[in-house]
């Protein structure tokens, strides 16, 4: 039986969290390939959401609702996916660095990555350097995200990168950083792989990075 996967996209775009979960489960009962649910249903849906947001047709809370729906569907789908189906949207660790209590920007970024299919582990605010390193060792994420809103806490991001190097795991993970006072130059200076000026672009920037890497 072939299934019209655009219905999944539509459900996602409407931001119906429970509805999408149910639809994902039902579709999994049919003979549709789980990879197709992701690649022909969910991801095209999120692409549309992303585009509409950029065009100013959709707003943050609507986008986040869709991201939540995506994340709920992914929880159901993930165990069924074959290796490679996920592309690079693997696991991500994200947190705000030590001494910094600003959380909303970091949370926005976390939710956007969930929406892109990542399994996001949000370790919270005011996280000591070693917690980032520990989390990378434990979860082996493809991406490590750090947020800092204070010029005084920005240096912690460089320190975490150095600790990753010292632990010999720097190459295992791409590092993306953001936060109001953070700049592209600063990212370069401390040896971060990626810098995102806002939560929306962060996902695209990561995607581009992984695509470039795999070619």
């Amino acid at each position, binding site marked *: 039986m072939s299934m019209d996967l655009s219905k999944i996209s539509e459900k996602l775009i409407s931001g119906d969290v429970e509805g999408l979960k149910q639809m994902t489960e039902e579709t999994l009962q049919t003979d549709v390939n789980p990879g197709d649910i992701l690649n022909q249903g969910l991801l095209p849906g999120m692409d549309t959401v992303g585009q509409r947001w950029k065009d*100013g047709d959709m*707003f*943050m809370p609507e986008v986040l609702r869709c991201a939540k729906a995506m994340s709920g569907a992914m929880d159901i789908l993930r165990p069924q996916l074959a290796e490679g189906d996920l592309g690079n949207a693997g696991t991500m660790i994200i947190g705000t660095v030590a001494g910094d*209590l600003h959380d909303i*920007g970091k949370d926005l970024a976390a939710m956007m990555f969930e929406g892109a299919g990542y399994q996001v582990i949000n370790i919270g605010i005011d996280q000591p350097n070693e917690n980032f390193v520990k989390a990378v060792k434990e979860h082996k994420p493809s991406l490590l995200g750090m947020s800092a809103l204070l*010029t*005084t806490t920005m240096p912690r991001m460089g320190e975490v990168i150095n600790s990753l190097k010292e632990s010999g795991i720097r190459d295992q993970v791409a590092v993306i950083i953001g936060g*109001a*006072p953070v700049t592209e130059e600063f990212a370069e200076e401390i040896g971060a792989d990626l810098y995102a000026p*806002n939560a929306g672009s962060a996902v695209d920037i990561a995607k581009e990075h992984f695509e470039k890497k795999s070619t």
Partner: protein
Amino acid sequence: MINNRTNYTIQESPHFEIFSEDQKEQIFNGMMRTLQYTGANVHHEGAREVFKKAGCKIDGIRVYFPPEVILKALSTVPPVTEVFPWDGDESKKIVVEKKRSYFGPGPTPPNFIDTETLERRPYLRKDASLVARVCDALPNMGYVQSLGSISDVTNGLADVYEFADMVRNTTTPIMSWSFTREGCRDIHRMGIAMAGGEEAFRARPNYIFYGEPISPLVSDFHAIDKCIYCAENRIPQVYSPCAIGGGTVPATHAGQLVVALSESMVGVIAAQLINPGTCVIIGGVQSILDMRFSIYSYGAPELSLLSAALTEVVHYCGLPMYSTSGCTDTKKMDVQSAMEASLSINAAMMSGANFVHDNGYTESGLTGDIFQTVMDDEIISMARVVERGVEVNEETMAVEQINNVGPGGHYLYEDHTMKWFRSHWMPSLMDRNSYESWEEQGRKTMKDRVLEKTRDLINNYEGPRDKVPGKADEEIKRILQEAEERIKKEEPKKQA
């Protein structure tokens, strides 16, 4: 002349109100319900102990405040507090009471608009004295903040250096901030040095301290720790959040007011329990998360509305209000910033907020722009004219003079005109030239005039640096040295 009017109502200045008494009470009760049933997280054992003793229910870090604790705290807040310029200049004295407004810049953005190049760059130590000096000269800056956080001193001492430099470059009372209690103490020691001793400071406090709870409903360790320090030492203090509508607080304005009021009240209660009668000012930045660009908007009209609305509720509680105006989302002073600042300054003025900060914030609070502050100074003086209202009495109605001049003719020769025309507002930046003179003088735009005025102050206004008593100067230098040593000791601790 005998005043023989009876049952006569006087209202001279504009009447601006958002809420009815009932609505204010409703928001107030919303705060009471929130603090009683939801409570707030307080990451400070000592503070939780104090709350517990006062009758609050504690569950881990969560503190639930019964109404009687809140009402008791509100019963000891002072109706009026005075803050004094360190040189004794009475004209710069601040009286913190209802319906008196003092405008000032804002604290701590990372960037500054360089006054020479006009480019954005990190805020430097020299900027703190510059801002202090320029604000010292501006007639409508009633108190001073730095417009930046210093990037070129030892990491962790931006707060202390800022105060040290500013206090010696302005006599206008400063609103200071710090990272931790230690910075707070260093600043306080400098305040005492300028006042001429601890007793003198208690009698005539010369600065105000600014701290922040975290929306929604959190007081982190350092915020409440500094609040306690200020209460213990009777330092007038602000305890107010930057609430982000739709982000950290509800998207509905009433909901935002309830949360913002609740989290600030935690500081009020702590301070009143520790030292009844100490001055706590609440309010904060109240605006919305822009859901398209995900920035905290400093130019949104909602900022004006929310700030004025919160002012009413805060005054209803019997507390002074820390409000916001003169700020913008555009990157540096321009037409957009003038529009946004005019609206917010006027609303803040009408609302009667006590302290109104962020005059000179650009880029949504990420950059300090002293040129914007100078332009805001002019807007504030215009708003004051409207606020002053219209005086109505025999002299000002001038019925006799009207009779003298009669129909036709003019008032230019009248003694009455001679006596009164100077009460008209005089612009210092606005252009009212004829086309020809404007052309002759180089077709200057508002931006040109603001740059000129600001640079003139920077280059020619000396400020009170020479008046600083030698002893105080020495003491400040010593405090800075000790702060350097303190940080050296703290650093290894942090790494461990």
